[in-house]
């Protein structure tokens, strides 16, 4: 499969992104912070081009760069989601960046680099390239979290993210070294062959898997490695939180799936119990801890922990249906979260941004369309049909039941009922409470478009779900033939 003609062709989108990041960096250096807006739009354009390049990729599987880099339907599906999320995230940040006077051309460049890292992650076919992709992404994001240099909270968030991220990278690397030591290779196929040959899996390899899982659980912010999430979400500037909540999560969870299934498909029973536990714990903690939150960004942090728990349920199933369910879940999660954060970014009063849940009080009477959009997202996140979020949950439950994980499915549905409580609480505050001071208008046109498109997607997903489902199915089939 390793042919020279494919060597670079397979990585065209990544190479393009890397070049674009460097060109934009030069442009920024020469033109200064005044042209941040231009750089941002060019970064979005670069992502759009990369999106098109990924879209045009042939579907067959290509392994290149000495087996370290893989392009298949699974990676391409994930890349499309990542690019979409990153581009929307960047567009959403522009208004905020201008209003908060933190125009820095490094910001779009860093986002571009982080996105490149994510694309590498989902195409990793080797423990080394896995780590490389992960670090490109993480280093860029550490800086981005602290980009509001004058803000105490932002710097604190960046530092926390960095210290804990470094710790998790350490664990991940330790796991990788154990796996290398006991299987003799860093290549996923070679590890898979080793596991398949030996018939049973050695204790050292299991320890390696456990550490690898711990590192990955940190990246997807699954319990018990979730502690950084609420603090970073709350501390980072809101558009950056919005970015953190979607694209890196998708990349990390896709990487998680590949790192478990590609090398260790034969040892599913060994890692399955770990994933079942973190899935269960994330769902429960996400549901209960969010109830007491008063800050909407912290609430969204716990909400995302819960969602990751649901998405991991698909991986826990360890079947092609499970992988598909997780992909569908993450795609729908993308739309719900982008929409919700677009609404959060519109929470601005004269004195600045507000983040309290109570600030949404009576939103229905101040701004009907925005309240309606948030209502739709909240019901969707709670998993009430016919909103899109229901279908995400439906598929993961089905995968879990199919794999015989009844306990996990029961915990999942019960957690979803608890979680429904805090989503409903937001609806209650918006619709049933007396109005608070209205938010400053106008909302930028890009926000209006994002809110409209995402809420329409969430409402009408049920009418024509076929494209997403078929795409996810093909992607899952690529990972688990």
């Amino acid at each position, binding site marked *: 499969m390793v042919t020279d003609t494919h060597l670079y062709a397979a990585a065209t989108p990544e190479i393009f992104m890397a070049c674009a990041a460097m060109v934009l960096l030069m442009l920024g250096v020469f033109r200064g912070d005044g042209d941040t807006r231009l750089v941002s739009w060019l970064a979005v354009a670069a992502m759009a081009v990369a999106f098109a390049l990924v879209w045009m990729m042939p579907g067959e599987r290509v392994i290149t760069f000495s087996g370290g880099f893989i392009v298949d339907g699974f990676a391409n599906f994930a890349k499309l989601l990542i690019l979409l999320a990153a581009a929307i995230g960047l567009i959403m940040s522009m208004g905020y960046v201008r209003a908060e006077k933190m125009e820095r051309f490094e910001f779009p460049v860093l986002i571009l680099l982080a996105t490149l890292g994510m694309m590498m992650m989902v195409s990793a076919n080797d423990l080394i390239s896995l780590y490389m992709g992960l670090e490109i992404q993480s280093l860029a994001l550490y800086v981005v979290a602290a980009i509001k240099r004058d803000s105490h909270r932002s710097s604190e968030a960046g530092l926390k993210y960095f210290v804990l991220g470094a710790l998790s990278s350490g664990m991940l690397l330790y796991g990788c070294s154990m796996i290398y030591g006991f299987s003799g290779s860093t290549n996923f196929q070679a590890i898979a062959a080793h596991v398949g040959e030996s018939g049973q899996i050695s204790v050292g390899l299991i320890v390696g898997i456990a550490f690898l899982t711990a590192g990955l659980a940190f990246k997807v912010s699954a319990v018990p490695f979730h502690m950084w999430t609420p603090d970073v979400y709350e501390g980072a500037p809101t558009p950056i939180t919005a970015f953190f909540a979607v694209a890196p999560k998708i990349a990390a969870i896709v990487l998680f799936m590949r790192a478990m299934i590609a090398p260790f498909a034969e040892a599913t029973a060994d890692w399955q119990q770990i994933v079942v536990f973190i899935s269960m714990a994330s769902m429960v903690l996400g549901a209960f801890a969010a109830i007491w939150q008063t800050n909407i960004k912290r609430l969204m942090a716990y909400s995302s922990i819960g969602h990751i728990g649901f998405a991991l349920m698909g991986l826990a199933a360890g079947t092609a249906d499970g992988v598909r369910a997780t992909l569908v879940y993450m795609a729908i999660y993308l739309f719900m979260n982008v929409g919700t954060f677009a609404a959060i970014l519109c929470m601005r009063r004269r004195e600045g941004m507000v983040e309290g849940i109570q600030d949404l009080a009576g939103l229905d009477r101040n701004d009907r369309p925005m309240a309606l959009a948030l209502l739709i997202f909240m019901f969707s996140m709670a998993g*009430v049909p016919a909103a899109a979020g229901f279908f995400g949950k439906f598929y993961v439950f089905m995968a*879990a039941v199919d794999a015989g994980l009844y306990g996990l499915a*029961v915990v999942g549905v019960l957690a*979803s009922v608890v979680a*429904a409580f805090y989503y*409903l609480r937001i609806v209650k505050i918006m*619709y049933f409470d007396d109005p608070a001071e209205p938010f400053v208008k106008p909302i930028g046109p890009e926000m209006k478009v994002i809110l409209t498109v995402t809420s329409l997607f969430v409402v009408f997903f049920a009418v024509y779900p076929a494209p997403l*489902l078929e795409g996810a199915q093909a992607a899952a089939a690529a990972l688990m033939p």
Partner: protein
Amino acid sequence: MTDWPLLSLVVFLPLAGVAFILVGGLTTKDEEIAARNARNGALWASAATFLVSLLIWASFDNSTAAFQFEERHEWLAPGIAYRLGVDGISMLFIVLTGLLTPICILASWETIKTRVPEYMIAFLVLETMMMGVFCALDFVLFYLFFEGGLIPMFLIIGIWGGPRRIYSTFKFFLYTLLGSVLLLLALAYMYVTVGTTDIPSLMEHQFAAEVQTWLWLALFASFAVKVPMWPVHTWLPDAHVEAPTAGSVVLAGVLLKMGGYGLLRFSIPMLPLASEYFIPLVFALSVVAVIYTSLVALMQEDMKKLIAYSSVAHMGFVTVGIFSFTTQGVEGGIVQMLSHGIVSAALFLCVGVVYDRMHSRMIADYGGLVNRMPKYAFVFAVFMLASVGLPGTSGFVGEFLVLVGVFQASTWVAALVSTGMILGAAYMLWLYRRVIFGKLEKENLKAILDLSPREVLIFAPLVVVALFMGIYPTPFLDVMHVSVENLLQQYQGALQAAEAASQAATQLAAK
């Protein structure tokens, strides 16, 4: 005409009203005009839906148990399709939903003054969901509508409800959701074992006996909350008391019927062995419901609460009737559901009439209304008697058939349940005496006005239906008869097959 997708039309026509209201709301800034548009749009859309439902009934073929007016489109996955159809069991519920929605909208015509467009949209969306529940022939589609109905109802209670509306609406939502998610798991299990969620195919599939028990319990958790059965009924009085009048009407009239319908559509045909196994459980819960909640109703001081508890008792009759597994019992259960849909809806409207005038639901605040409101006293009397089950009213037909059916299944249960009829007469007559009869002594009641023409228009069709069903129930029974027979035959067939299998197994073991 039959080429038309009539069922899709009846399900989605209310959404056309929603679109109309949205467009109207966007084009005008004037609240008054928007409200008027919304009221008219909602009324016309729901009236048209009612006409379509009547048309479906008119062209419904009574002589077959097969599903009619079928529609089918590929949807989520192979085996999960958009499939609609009606049979004798669901037919009349569609008409009931069609009838009650325009009545609800008329009943809210003047009482809802704030956020009228939103209110009307919520009601129309709710109607779509309710229609969908009764039309769906795919389990996922059913679940979608079944759960989706929670959203508009949550908002209706939460926005336009009484003082404790937030507590009530959360309780309503979370209770029902908790039941429903277990249904979802059962649904997922059925899909992965059978490979389809097509309801007729699932009915033909024989689930293993031990699996049936678990599936049945999961389904029951959902349907029992919806019915509601004792002891998971506690959300109902709260929701009823705090909901606006029309909310209570639709809750009692249609939403409660989804539980009974679910038992008939899913639990019994798909899980016959477990249904038979759990008969004592259902009987016990229903008997407690009938007697205990009747006694509770007797002690209520709030009219809405009293009627809410009486609903629980009446639904106890329904579940007893269905699980008697006799033709009379099941038909009686369905008639009782329809009758309760009309009668308790009308009783909530009756409470709404005086509540609109006096802003109190307390029985003690009234008395002697007959002196000022003779028309109202007559209407209230009709529905009060129908609720009691006086011969000649719809309530009698249902309760009588249920008792005849249950008597064949278990004399004791029949005897216990029939005490409920006596208690029912006690609390309803006592309520009537305290509110309507006596001297008109309260100062603030001296100027109370009788029914307005709009209110007469609301009550007239309900009075006619309640009496018609009581005097000449044959047209209603004819619709469901073949389907009910078919259901019972399937059920008996499944039991006999299981019996034969177990006998063969024991003989094999003996050899």
